[in-house]
């Protein structure tokens, strides 16, 4: 399953290289000195508790968040130079399904394709083929507002890959998909990575991250607390599953206590008692 263990000792140019990345919002520090190099063909499982700074890192790389300190280089170029051309080679699936849902999938995907610099007819045709492959051919001309959550997610996935990007930033890309679609999409990611694409995968579902990633980066409180293949992480922490490793590294061991207390509180003063 691992797609090439070349985390250390790499001689090729990194596609993403982050040095000393700090970021604070007005009241708190979100990132405290992230250093990171990512190479072609890697599937990075980017995990961490809520508020650890995962989305912020991704948004900085996309140019959506500014005001950071440190350097972020993508394809060897510093992204703060104001040239947005590097985004042409990036695909992005945001965490929340933000899209123009009063458009039909045809209109939306064609529009996104054009923004990425594709020709209208090419984008339209390609989107139609991809929609068909994900069983959405009938919905292609319906308004996205009428879609189910899973259908919207598929549209977002297609929108992120339509222009054949070299880096994919995915934030919970499988949310809302049914089991069959999950298998298809996971296989798509693996195949893309084997072709040299880089995938930056944030998720809270540890089983998937464990299986799909060639390298796992665990972020906690704005710091990288673990970085390596799943095998390496398991060795370090002597835990069986990624979920357990996650709990251990983020110092969380009270889940049983909290759960039982939670259930107790639910029982208090219920209106129908």
């Amino acid at each position: 399953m691992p797609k090439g263990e070349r985390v250390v000792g790499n001689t090729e140019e990194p596609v993403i290289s982050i040095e000393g990345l700090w970021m604070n919002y007005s009241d708190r520090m979100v990132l405290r000195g992230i250093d990171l190099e990512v190479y072609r063909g890697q599937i990075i499982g980017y995990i961490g508790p809520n508020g650890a700074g995962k989305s912020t890192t991704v948004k900085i790389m996309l140019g959506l968040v500014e005001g950071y300190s440190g350097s972020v280089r993508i394809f060897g170029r510093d992204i703060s130079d104001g040239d947005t051309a590097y985004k042409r080679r990036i695909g992005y699936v945001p965490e929340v399904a933000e899209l123009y849902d009063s458009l039909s999938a045809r209109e939306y995907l064609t529009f996104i394709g054009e923004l990425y610099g594709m020709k209208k007819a090419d984008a339209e045709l390609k989107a139609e083929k991809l929609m068909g492959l994900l069983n959405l051919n009938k919905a292609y001309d319906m308004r996205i507002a009428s879609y189910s959550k899973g259908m919207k997610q598929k549209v977002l996935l297609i929108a992120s890959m339509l222009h054949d990007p070299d880096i994919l930033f995915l934030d919970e890309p499988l949310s809302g998909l049914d089991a069959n679609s999950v298998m298809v999409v996971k296989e798509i990611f693996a195949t893309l990575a084997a072709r040299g694409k880089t995938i930056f995968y944030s998720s809270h579902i540890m089983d998937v991250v464990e299986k799909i990633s060639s390298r796992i980066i665990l972020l906690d409180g704005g710091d990288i607390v673990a970085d390596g293949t799943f095998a390496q992480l398991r060795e370090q922490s002597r835990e069986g599953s990624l979920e357990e490793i996650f709990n251990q590294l983020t110092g969380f061991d009270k889940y049983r206590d909290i759960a039982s207390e939670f259930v107790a509180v639910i029982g208090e003063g219920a209106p129908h008692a």
Partner: protein
Amino acid sequence: MRDFFVLKLLDRMQWIFKALGADYAVLRRILQVKLTMDGRRTPTIFSGTQEPKLNMEGSPFRVQWLYLLLGLMLIALVAPADNYILTMSLMFSIVMFMITTTLISDFSTVMLDLRDKNILFSKPVDRRTLNMAKSIHILIYLLTLTLTFTGPSLLFSLFRHGALFFFLYAAEIILMDGFILVFTALVYLLILRFFDGEKLKDIINYVQIILSVGVTVGAQLVSRLFNITEFGLNFTPAWWHFALPPVWFGAPFELLVGGAEGRHLTILAVLALAAPVVLFAAYIRLMPLFERSLQKLAEQGASGQGTGRIARRLSEITCRNKVEAMFFRFTWSMMKHEREFKLRVYPTVGLSLVLPFIFIFNQVWSGDMAAIRGSRSFLFIYYSALLMMTAVQMLRYSTSYKGAWIYKVIPLPGTAMVYRGMLKAVVLKLLVPLFTLEAAVFLGLFGSRIIADMAAVLLALLLYSVLCFLLFPRALPFSEKYEAARRKEFTGSAFVQLFVLAGLAGIHYVFTLIPAGIYIYLVILAAANTWIWHRAFLPEDSGSSRLPTLRAGG
């Protein structure tokens, strides 16, 4: 996706955008998508059976008949063939007033929008193009609105005054729209630069109030330009004319069409051209900064804003029903936090605050204070209820309208109490404080003899609030997405509400003519209030006003 006429028009001018450093193809595409979306309706959670024409695709440019109608009246100002500076300054002050208030109440959300950024800016679109698309999007609407409003007089002027006047007028309308847009944007930028986090969000609303007050007062000053003497109108130059944009726009007519001369007029006329151009250049330069500063609005400050104790107390005092009290508190806190609601309603707060005084001071200006004190001018306080019109109408909208599924899920006995709690919350949070403030000033101006009248006004306004609510089509609070296209459907009922308000003031006036009539009126109003607050919110029996959910069968 249609190819809009406006876009074809823009194609002719694409060199401008290219010169300004935008990627025109991308710009055009974004605009096309935006305009298409504006013409479409987003189905609401409750729209199951209520709106059979769900997929109706209206043009975003449907004519606003009200504006056209009002525009017809402007012809009167364009008709005289002398004193251009007077007539045209007045004209522009009216137009600027209308357009600016519309801009700050309806388009502030678009200007300060962040949702787009994640979709568009994660793509290789440069910042300048994105910003320009946003500005042009707004400008297109402003121009459509302005043209509807000024159209009749514009056309009339061509026949009355000839081509020179016509082209000057048309050019100035465009300059004026640009000026208003850029000026407002720069004001917002200034605030975005200086404030942070939660404070920024509040300040923006205050600035909206200040802007609308400023525009209203400014428009009033224009009519003070001239000394009305027995022999007609005189224009005496004064320094403060330079601070009034409508006068800038009036000056070129006097110079070019009227053939007048003078340094004062020339400077004013130059300002009409120079000020918009300079501001526009500054705006283009500062646009990236604007976009970057906008990000601040997205930051969630760890705001521990009050625990809602006031709302709790008030809901206990005013609502006997549990559901009613619950929705009182819900509406209260939503009004406090819903940015979109605040952005749309606060400009009207400004208007409602200042309009009663404007009318009073108009009289102070022309008459003596003693006469005012004895008069019934305090009835102008009825204008403060304009606020209710907007507030009640806006309560149905929310950015998080999808959260309205909660109405379907909770075991609600009916909607009557939801509406009553909602209405009470608006009245207590917005109308009562505003009214108290104005009544206090009025009492200072008119003396204690109007105490009974003020009490009557308060009761009448409470009555009016229910009428406002009844006149608008019903919608659960914060359950719909705001769509400009839909709002036009409300102009009719808004018009009716204006008449109702005027009617209430009229009745009040009649009662003041009868000795001790005001006390009779008070009794009648008290009875009417008790009746209507009860009658309008009866538990639904016929099923006609049941929770729309039940029929939507989601």
